[in-house]
């Protein structure tokens, strides 16, 4: 039986699935064992602990109420306390019974037996205490309570405390065991998982290696064929025959394909060489013929083109000469017109120059007059200032006279009757002074107006001076511009005259040329039409030969391509 790739894969994955199943089963059992342990802790030991605590509290409460019963003398309170005592006793016994049902260990059982014994003894004594209390023998009851009853209560209570302690110890023990079990299970699980992963890797690597090796060999064989290497390979065949699986079939199929290809290539090679030889011969013969015809055709063609171009050029020349003649006439007329305009401009320019010269003279005179006026105005300014000084002096004198006249009047008054005439004189002097003062004031006003006028005149004068200066500058510039225009105009006139002479001589020569060209044109046209006929028939022949030549060339090319293709195969 063949151990094929498919079977190998199935076997490997089967082993891995089996191991994984085992791992799963083991995991579940481990989890269950850990779970059992923790249940034991909660159900047995925590519950036991609770019950022991209940017993402890119940018996302690009982003891407190028993004491209250003993101390009190109130019958109602006694009756209530007895009820409470009975309830606590029932609670204690119920807890004890529950606990007994959960007992498992021998040590536990012994402790429970002790508790039962001691609590019964304690309750016996308690009955006596209560009896004494009811009979109001308080002292005896208290004595009993602190004597026999105390001993028995302590015993019972201590045993219960031991029971609590025992339960806690057992719970801790169970917890430790549970942790231990968990740790062990984890270790085993890790080991098993690692083993499975390792095994899977080994199996995968083995399978991949065995498949890749064979595949590489087959691919190498195919590559060889793709590179057109079809040489018979004895070693390759013997390697393939050793394969026991699907790769053997693949290899054998490939080998037989290579054999068929080899035979096919050989036969194509032989045929293509024959075709090539024949095509070569044909091509050579046609090419010689074609070359001869082409030579003739080219010569004729060139001739035809030459004569056609000549005829065309001659015609164009004649046309252009006609156009030239018209242009020349227009230019002659334009030149005459320009000459007239230029003459008019020249006259206008001369007039301009004359005006500018006159303007310059006027400006000069203007300037001189303005300077004289400015001098006069300055003089006037100085004079008016002198007047001001004089009026200031008059003012001060007037004021002084006024003061003197006042004092004279006063003196006259003091002189009494003798001073009367003098007083009149003083008054007259005062009046004169007052009139003088008024006149001086008027003079002041007039002088200040004159000064204002002078300053206005001065500023106007300076403006006028600036304007005159600008006019002078502008007129100089304008004069220069007119002179430049004059020069240009006379130059232009000279140029235009020489232009007209040149144009006239061109016009005369042109007519002779036109006659010669017309003759040449007719001859060229005749020659062109004859040559064109010859050229057309040559072209037809040439085209036929070219077609044949192209076919022979194609054939040759095909056989060459075929040979190149075949040469790529190695057989």
């Amino acid at each position, binding site marked *: 039986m063949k151990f094929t790739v498919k079977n190998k894969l199935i076997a490997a994955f089967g082993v891995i699935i089996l191991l994984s199943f085992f791992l799963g089963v083991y995991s579940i059992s481990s989890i269950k064992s850990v779970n059992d342990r923790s249940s034991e802790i909660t159900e047995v030991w925590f519950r036991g602990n609770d019950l022991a605590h209940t017993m402890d509290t119940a018996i302690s409460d009982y003891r407190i109420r028993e004491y209250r019963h003993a101390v009190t003398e109130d019958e109602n309170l006694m009756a209530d306390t007895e009820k409470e005592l009975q309830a606590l006793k029932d609670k204690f016994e119920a807890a004890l019974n529950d606990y007994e049902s959960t007992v498992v260990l021998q040590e536990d059982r012994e402790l429970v037996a002790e508790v039962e014994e001691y609590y019964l003894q304690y309750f016996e004594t308690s009955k006596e205490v209560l009896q004494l209390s009811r009979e109001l023998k308080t002292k005896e009851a208290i004595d009993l309570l602190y004597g026999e009853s105390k001993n028995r209560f302590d015993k019972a209570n201590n045993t219960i405390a031991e029971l609590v302690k025992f339960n806690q110890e057992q719970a801790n023990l169970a917890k430790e065991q549970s942790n231990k079990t968990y740790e062990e299970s984890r270790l085993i699980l890790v080991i098993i998982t690692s083993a499975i992963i390792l095994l899977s890797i080994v199996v995968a690597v083995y399978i991949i290696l065995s498949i890749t090796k064979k595949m590489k060999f087959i691919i190498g064989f195919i590559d060889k064929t793709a590179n057109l290497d079809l040489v018979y390979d004895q070693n390759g065949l013997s390697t393939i025959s050793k394969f026991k699986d699907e790769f053997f079939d693949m290899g054998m199929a490939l080998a037989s394909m290579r054999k068929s290809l080899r035979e096919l290539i050989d036969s194509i090679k032989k045929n293509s060489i024959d075709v090539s030889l024949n095509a070569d011969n044909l091509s050579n013969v046609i090419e010689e013929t074609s070359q001869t015809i082409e030579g003739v055709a080219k010569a004729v063609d060139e001739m035809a083109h030459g004569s056609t171009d000549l005829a065309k050029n001659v015609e164009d020349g004649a046309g252009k000469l006609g156009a030239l003649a018209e242009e020349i006439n227009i230019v002659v007329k334009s030149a005459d017109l320009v000459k007239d305009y230029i003459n008019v401009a020249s006259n206008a320019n001369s007039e301009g120059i004359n005006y500018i010269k006159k303007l310059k003279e006027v400006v000069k005179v203007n300037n001189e007059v303005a300077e004289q006026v400015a001098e006069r105005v300055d003089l006037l300014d100085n004079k008016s200032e002198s007047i001001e000084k004089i009026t200031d002096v008059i003012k001060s004198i007037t004021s002084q006279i006024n*003061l003197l006249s*006042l*004092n004279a*009047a*006063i*003196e006259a*008054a*003091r002189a009494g009757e003798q001073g009367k005439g003098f*007083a009149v004189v*003083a*008054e007259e002097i*005062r009046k004169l002074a007052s009139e003088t003062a008024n006149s001086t004031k008027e003079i002041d006003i007039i002088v200040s107006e004159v000064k204002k006028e002078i300053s206005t005149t001065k500023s106007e004068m300076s403006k006028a001076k600036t304007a005159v200066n600008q006019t002078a500058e502008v007129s100089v510039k304008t004069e220069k511009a007119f002179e430049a225009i004059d020069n240009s105009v006379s130059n232009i006139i000279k140029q235009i005259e020489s232009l007209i002479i040149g144009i006239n001589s061109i016009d005369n020569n042109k007519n002779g040329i036109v006659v010669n060209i017309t003759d040449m044109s007719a001859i060229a046209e005749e020659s062109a039409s004859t040559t064109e006929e010859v050229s057309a028939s040559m072209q037809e022949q040439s085209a036929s030969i070219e077609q044949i030549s192209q076919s022979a060339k194609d054939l040759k090319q095909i056989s060459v391509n075929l040979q190149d293709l075949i040469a790529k195969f190695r057989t």
Partner: protein
Amino acid sequence: MIYAKFVVFRIGKEEYAVPISQVKEIINYRSPTTIPLDIESIVGVINLRGKVIPIIDLGKEIGIESENKPIKGEKIIIIEDTDGAFGVIVDEVEEVIKIGEDDIHKVNDIYERNKYITEIAKNDNRLIIIIDLNLFWKEVSK
């Protein structure tokens, strides 16, 4: 008609008159030399031909701000009587006039506070306050 003569002067816009008999003379303003004195009204003294004369700013004393004028226009009226001489600064001395006795009116008691204003004179539609500068001097130099 009996006339009296007065020297008319101006402080601010008001015209005042002083009886000509009290006036010694009129001089141009000169700046007084300030000296420490108990009498507040005396702004200083001037030297008039070798005599030391105390000067009073009359405008300030009668509560009239003198016109904002150039010093040039100011005058000093020199008053003289038996007790001695003193000068009074005024803005301007205008004229010497004669006023008829009918045109001079005694002032009412309302003006009692200013004892030196004795009369008011009417002259050509203007009112002139007559000051007795000797009384005034007695008031200020008490």
